[in-house]
């Protein structure tokens, strides 16, 4: 599984990245987490508000930091 966090470095983006890493670790999910901070690459996903969360190349959320349970649910749905 591939999880991407889209963000240029605002506090919410860093927040989301830590959150996702923690969730993946806690539930021992086999996932590769990538931080995408190049604007050109972020724009490819069609979002304008960061942070964006992409699971297996599918945008699941943008513009906010979702709740832990919600993130876990998306990850499970994508497995």
């Amino acid at each position, binding site marked *: 599984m591939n999880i991407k966090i889209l963000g*240029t*470095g*605002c506090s*919410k*983006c860093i927040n989301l990245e830590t959150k996702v890493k923690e969730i993946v670790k806690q539930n021992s999910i086999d996932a590769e987490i990538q931080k995408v901070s190049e*604007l*050109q690459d*972020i*724009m*490819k*996903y*069609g*979002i*304008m*508000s*960061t942070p964006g969360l992409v699971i297996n190349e*599918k*945008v*699941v*959320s*943008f*513009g906010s930091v979702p*709740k*832990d*349970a919600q993130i876990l649910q998306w990850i499970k749905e994508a497995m």
Partner: protein
Amino acid sequence: MFSKFIKKDSIFIKNKILIPIILLPVWLILYIYLEPIVNGMVYNTFGMNKISQITETIRFFIYEVPKVLMLLTLIVFVVGIIRSYFSPEKTRKALEGKPLFVGNIMASSLGIVTPFCSCSAIPLFLGFVEAGIPLGVTFSFLIAAPMINEVAIVLLFGLFGWKTALIYVSTGLFIAIFSGWVIGKLKLEKWVEPWVYEIKAGNLTMEEEKLNLNHRIDAGFTAVREIVSKVWIYIIIGIAIGAGAHGYVPAEFMASFMGKDVWYSVPLAVLLGVPMYSNAAGIIPIVQVLLEKGASLGTSLAFMMAVIGLSLPETIILKKVLKYPLIFTFVGIVATGIMIVGFLFNLIF
């Protein structure tokens, strides 16, 4: 631990609308009785002398801090709920195909309510340009979004009353519409970095999730947590400075160089304000001191808007997508707009 608590809580309270409905009367009662409580505390309990300056300074501080924080919490909560109805993506859709002027008005108004942080200014700029939204309309949005700020509205309302708050919102809108329109008329697309136009943004495959009322109320509480936890310290410091000046600086101290009869006071205020960077929470209590000590409304308003609306960090961020001539034009036009507002108010009031 905390999240567990909330989870349990949300099973308990099916309709979260009940929380604000219960809290609002409590808020109201507290707000109404705040002044008598504070006065009673300062004059009776502490037994302080009614006319001494130190008493007045302390009373001012003890009264203003909870008052402003309470107002802030309420407004940020309401704005948080309103904002959950908007997103940059929806705003972009609304602005697509709108001509200049109508587009400027819409973009400026949407700039007030659309969730925006200066860290997403660039993706937003790229997204707007990619959707074919004219440069001038995009700028109207980028000017209004930081300049008309809910924290500033609360503080102005709390410290000066609703008229000043209204003046701030309407002049802010005017500047955003005017500046964006001028930038649009000047046809400055040539000064946008060429790579901007080559970007191929992907299509967003995800449908924006439908939010129910519970989600929106959550959004309100999240906004309160995020914003109040960030700005409370500035508000307390600002009010402390205000309280100090309130008691000790002579009343006409500022009149000689920031009064309405000093013609250069407005450009000077803008010139000073542009390189300064502060959030609304920090600058407004300072503006309160200026006003109280004889600075004119127009000059103070111009100073405040220059500090909040035009900031060096944001212009540096914009350098990624704009060439210098456009950045200077942008700063110049917005500064001119702010000065017009300043002069106008010095003339009227």
